[in-house]
């Protein structure tokens, strides 16, 4: 039995189709969800987190139907950790108070065990020393880690993280990688991000969503291989490249199209593979990103 099973899942908001028939299943290990804005990543994660229901298709979480009985939904939620994309923090709560509040919502009713568990997850994300600090006094990255801490309460079997790396500096990203590698052995981790480097660093498996459909699903190494032979270093940008940019050495990193004269094949990265996969979308995105 897979921890997460989705078949033919669709979801629309009014006339906007967020998910247009998605088949995916996940078991233990870390999977990264990549895709442009509006690709359906957050919708997919919210469905897995039982925050919203799918319009059609079947969703099975830990072998249960989240649309089923109250008992089924509650049983799923007991095994679920969720870090939403936007998480507000009540202004006068401390980091400890916040995580304790969520712990009560997760039915940690025995006070001694609850306090020990809250301390454990705060230590796990490296916030043990800041536990008594008001959340409003914490930095963006620290707040994100408070959010991550609450999602780890009770060692969930399904962990859904919507953009967990937002606001984290490189050292904190490395910490996150360590934390996820600790939990991934016994838990299905599903995380979304805009950063291909995050996926390369944190995940074994990658799913690319675009326009509400699955464009790619496989190992990270497999996805990188799709770009083999299509990435070059050259002295000019290449006239039909999917995307190219000037690197620090003054040469151009050219992805896709015909190799420019004198081009040297380069080792592809996950980002190259992602840009090739999304083609036109990526071209407009990079045009917007580089006005100069």
């Amino acid at each position, binding site marked *: 039995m897979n921890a997460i099973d989705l078949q033919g899942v669709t979801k629309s908001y009014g006339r906007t189709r967020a998910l247009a028939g998605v088949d995916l299943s996940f078991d233990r290990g870390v999977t990264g969800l990549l895709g442009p804005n509006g690709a359906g990543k957050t919708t997919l994660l919210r469905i897995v987190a*039982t925050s*919203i229901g799918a319009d059609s298709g079947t969703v099975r979480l830990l072998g249960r139907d989240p649309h089923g009985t109250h008992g089924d939904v509650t049983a799923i*939620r007991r095994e679920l950790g969720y870090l939403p994309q936007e998480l*507000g923090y009540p202004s006068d709560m401390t980091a400890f*108070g916040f995580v304790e*509040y969520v712990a*009560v919502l997760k039915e940690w009713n025995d006070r001694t065990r609850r*306090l020990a568990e809250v301390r454990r997850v705060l230590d796990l994300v490296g916030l043990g020393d800041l536990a*008594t600090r008001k959340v409003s006094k914490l930095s963006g990255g620290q707040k994100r880690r408070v959010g991550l801490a609450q999602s780890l309460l009770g060692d969930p079997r399904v962990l859904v993280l919507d953009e967990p790396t937002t606001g984290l500096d490189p050292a904190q990203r490395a910490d996150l990688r360590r934390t996820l590698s600790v939990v991934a052995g016994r838990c299905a981790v599903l995380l979304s991000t805009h950063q291909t480097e995050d996926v390369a660093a944190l995940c074994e498996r990658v799913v690319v969503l675009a326009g509400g459909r699955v464009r790619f699903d496989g190992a990270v190494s497999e996805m990188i291989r799709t770009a083999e032979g299509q990435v070059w270093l050259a002295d000019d940008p290449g006239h039909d490249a999917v995307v190219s940019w000037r690197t620090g050495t003054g040469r151009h990193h050219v992805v896709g199209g015909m190799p420019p004269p004198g081009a040297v094949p380069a080792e592809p990265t996950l980002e190259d593979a992602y840009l090739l996969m999304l083609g036109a979308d990526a071209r407009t995105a990079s045009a917007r990103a580089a006005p100069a």
Partner: protein
Amino acid sequence: MTTPHTTWHADDDLLAAYVAGELDPIGGASVEQHLTRCAECRVRIRPLVDVPALDRTWLAIRDTVQSPVLPLPIRVARRLGLPEPTSVLLAATASLRTAWLASAVVALAFAVLAAAWSSDGVIAPFLLVAPLIPVLGVAAAYGPHEDPLESLVVTAPYGRTRLILLRTLAVLASALPVAVPLGFLLPGPVWLAVAWLGPALALVPVLLALASFVGPRAAGATVAIGWSAVVLGSLRPLPATWPVEATQQVVYLGLAALAGVVLYVRTRHDRQIGAVL
């Protein structure tokens, strides 16, 4: 500050007596002073210390320091048997804070004073304010933003409906015991003192039903404006007690029943998993 050339060291008996707490205050303080400066004595005292006991003490201190202080009404409720986990949930409720309750009581006390001091017993200010206190308390329970924890509450096993009903009951249980006695200070017929509870209790389900569509802020504002219109509209043409007379009470009851049905249908038929309140 370390003094490198300490010649004197505490002997084992002295250290043992210090750990056991058997020294007099001055002796204990001097051993403590010495220990902060002498690494050698710190090494020798280590085996004498009961580490698990020290850990327990430290954890107890951490728990006390890190646990948020509970607002007064919740501390009272704990004494009366409110379960401990529930008190953690309620402590985060903005309108159960002492400050919020105090301002509600002050507003109501002014309304009562106005009625008592006016020559012809004007009760409109009281009728205007009193029924809105529970309603606004429930609306304000969400805090300054519509519940910032919304997305987490929705996916927690505790359940959102349960949390909202718990907060509503808590607001009623904390606001009514102070509001009801004030009602008895009103001039006029004695039944007035309890009659305002009709709209007060009926408007709460109306608020919850409205909030399931437009959120607690807008719902609170709508109910407040609606109730003010009823009270102020009846001010001139009708007797002062009109808003809480028997016929009107039946209307409030009907509204409350309707709101109950709306809530029931909403929680049943929405595709959102969980509740919609």
